[in-house]
């Protein structure tokens, strides 16, 4: 194989980002002073640069079939990069505030992003595994980043142990699939499985294990146990990160893995995804009701949202996948905006996490209350906010495929979920005001504004996102 046949230029964005990461790392290690702010800025710059490199879209298959660059991967990569960049912005002030100003923080987020980009482009089970590990390992460390705090260390350890178990399951599944089909490349697998009757039970068991491993990463029921504890224990800037990009990449990987190599086995995995989806939606909407801590609430909310996203995958059509991508876009912006607001909840220098602490925010800080309300309404799926459109695309895809039950359960759980989202709005506007929060730092206001504007005005210009999502989804069904 010659050097040109490797098509190595396809991975230029990843290579550039990884090299930037190593450069920033060396810079941070060598400089005598603490360079958290500077390294964060450099990391954001690296994300922007990589985003620019992803945009022109050199498509093809490279590295002996290990790596695919197509419209789908480009879409996911851009979303991941935007989410990661916003999360770094969000962490700028918070980390300074809670004494986590260490340059390794943005560097780890950067390497995590490299892993996620690799996942988006994986066209081989091995690439899938290595990318997932790169992402997870960085997050385990980040979750435990506040090492002197018991909760953070516990979160990191818990996530690590359970994550290692999930990785083990996934590897076991991969080995079963390899053993029963003789290949790990997605295209070869698709070829070998063109006739669904040829799939042996061993192969199906392997697929189940792979789904289980990825379902753990997106925290879908019944692999969600870690989510509330990790969300609550991790530093809040990491919780913000956890809810965005590291949900997008495994979900995209799950979609690609199910649609491309195992696409012909739709009947085999559809039931599984439907079950996981229903369970996630139910748990996400019911368990969140009793929560007092906003971070835990967001954890259950994310479980519920992943349930909705899985409906799109279960539909197994272009429209379904398109819905998944649109939903993820809207979710990322709402989530990062919400966390920007949560991070601004501090009173006399002390970080607050209770829902009751928001009481009367409508009077003490109307701008922040408005943003928060927009996000909550968006997450509940109230039209015309972006959250509604995500749900709309997903449910309509399910209905097209005749999956009425799924769509109905989705709508019902949305209604239940709307209760606790709107409850927060009630607390903000109708409860007796408490003391005002400390003045917001500009970076948080910026992110909240970006998220809020996107959520509010998505319905005005949905065309580019919808068109890109459509193009991306079609790639998987060629």
């Amino acid at each position, binding site marked *: 194989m010659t050097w040109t046949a490797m098509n190595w230029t396809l991975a230029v964005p990843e290579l550039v980002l990884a090299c930037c990461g190593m450069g920033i790392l060396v810079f941070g290690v060598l400089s005598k002073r603490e360079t958290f702010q500077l390294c964060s800025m450099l990391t954001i710059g690296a994300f922007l640069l990589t985003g620019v490199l992803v945009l022109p879209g050199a498509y093809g298959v490279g590295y*002996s079939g*290990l790596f695919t660059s197509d419209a789908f991967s480009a879409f996911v990569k851009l979303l991941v990069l935007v989410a990661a960049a916003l999360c770094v912005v969000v962490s700028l002030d918070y980390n300074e505030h809670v004494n986590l100003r260490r340059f390794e923080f943005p560097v780890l987020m950067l*390497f995590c992003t490299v892993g996620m980009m690799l996942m988006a482009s994986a066209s081989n089970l091995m*690439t899938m595994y290595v990318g997932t590990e790169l992402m997870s*390992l*960085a997050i385990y460390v980040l979750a*435990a*980043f506040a*090492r002197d705090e018991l909760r953070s260390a516990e979160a990191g350890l818990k996530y690590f142990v359970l994550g290692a178990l999930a990785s083990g399951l996934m590897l076991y599944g991969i080995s079963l699939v390899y053993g029963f089909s003789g290949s790990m490349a997605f295209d070869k697998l698709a070829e070998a499985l063109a006739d669904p009757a040829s799939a042996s*039970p061993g192969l199906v068991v392997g697929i189940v294990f792979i789904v289980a491993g990825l379902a753990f990463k997106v925290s879908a029921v019944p692999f969600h146990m870690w989510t509330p504890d990790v969300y609550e224990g991790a530093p809040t800037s990491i919780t913000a990160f956890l809810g965005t990009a590291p949900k997008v990449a495994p979900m995209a990987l799950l979609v690609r893995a199910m649609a491309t190599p195992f696409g012909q086995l739709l009947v085999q995995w559809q039931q599984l995804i439907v079950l996981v989806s229903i369970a996630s939606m139910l748990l996400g909407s019911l368990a969140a009701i009793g929560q007092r801590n906003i971070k835990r609430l967001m954890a259950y909310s994310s479980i519920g949202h992943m349930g909705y996203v899985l409906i799109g995958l279960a539909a197994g059509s272009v429209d379904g996948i398109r819905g998944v991508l649109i939903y993820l876009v809207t979710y990322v912006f709402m989530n990062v905006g919400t966390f920007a607001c949560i991070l601004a909840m501090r009173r006399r220098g002390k970080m607050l996490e209770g829902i009751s602490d928001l009481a009367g925010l409508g009077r003490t800080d109307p701008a922040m209350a408005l943003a928060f309300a927009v996000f909550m309404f968006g997450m509940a799926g109230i039209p015309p906010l972006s959250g509604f459109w995500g749900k709309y695309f997903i449910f309509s895809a399910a209905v097209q495929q005749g999956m009425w039950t799924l769509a109905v359960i989705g709508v019902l759980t949305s209604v239940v979920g709307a209760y606790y989202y709107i409850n927060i709005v009630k607390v903000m506007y109708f409860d007796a005001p408490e003391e005002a929060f400390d003045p917001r730092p500009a970076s948080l206001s910026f992110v909240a504004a970006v998220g809020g504007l996107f959520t509010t005005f998505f319905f005005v210009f949905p065309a580019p996102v919808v068109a890109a999502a459509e193009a991306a989804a079609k790639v998987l069904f060629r």
Partner: protein
Amino acid sequence: MIATLAFYVFAVILLVSASMVVSARNPVHSVLFLILTFFNAAALFLLAGAEFLAMILVIVYVGAVAVLFLFVVMMLDVNFAQLREGFQRYLPVGATIGVVLLVELFMVLGGWKFAPEAASLRFAPVTPGVHNTAQLGRLLYTDYFLLFQASGLVLLVAMIGAIVLTLRDKGDGRRQDISRQLARTAADTLVMVDVATGAGMKDVGILRPKVAEPEPVAAAHDHGHGGHH
């Protein structure tokens, strides 16, 4: 004939020592049995013609990984009797899960079909004429180049993580700067002074810092002078 015999000998020792790893009472013995297991696995690799893998297994797992295991096991004072306390209680649950998995495994194996190429590949694990080290190299550095690099990143992240979570550098440690030490010359530190006989240190203007000056005795003068060299 000898190869078959050797295979069975190594395989039996491997299985026995592997079971000893989990059943030995002393954790240090467990690690030592683990090392024996690695050795026999390496021998089996050798018999299969994968000499490079065999040696790498010994170098990496026995020479480095197991050393660290042993290191940790020897340093830890783990009370294994206490760890085993719950064994009886959890046995039924564990056994049930084990049996279920076993049944599943049999069900899966019932549907086992070899991939079409597997049967032919089995008889020629190595391409004739190409050294298996070279073949491994081609796989790692050409075919799986991307994965190789990505695994490198995984290890880098693990390293950063270990440092971030454990290094507590208060910055008050006394560091040795070897280049500065070497750059120091006699002229920087040494002063030659003529001390008149009977003159005290104070008279000459040499004072040792922070040392309470005892009343100089005449005989101690030469001694004090020598101390500056």
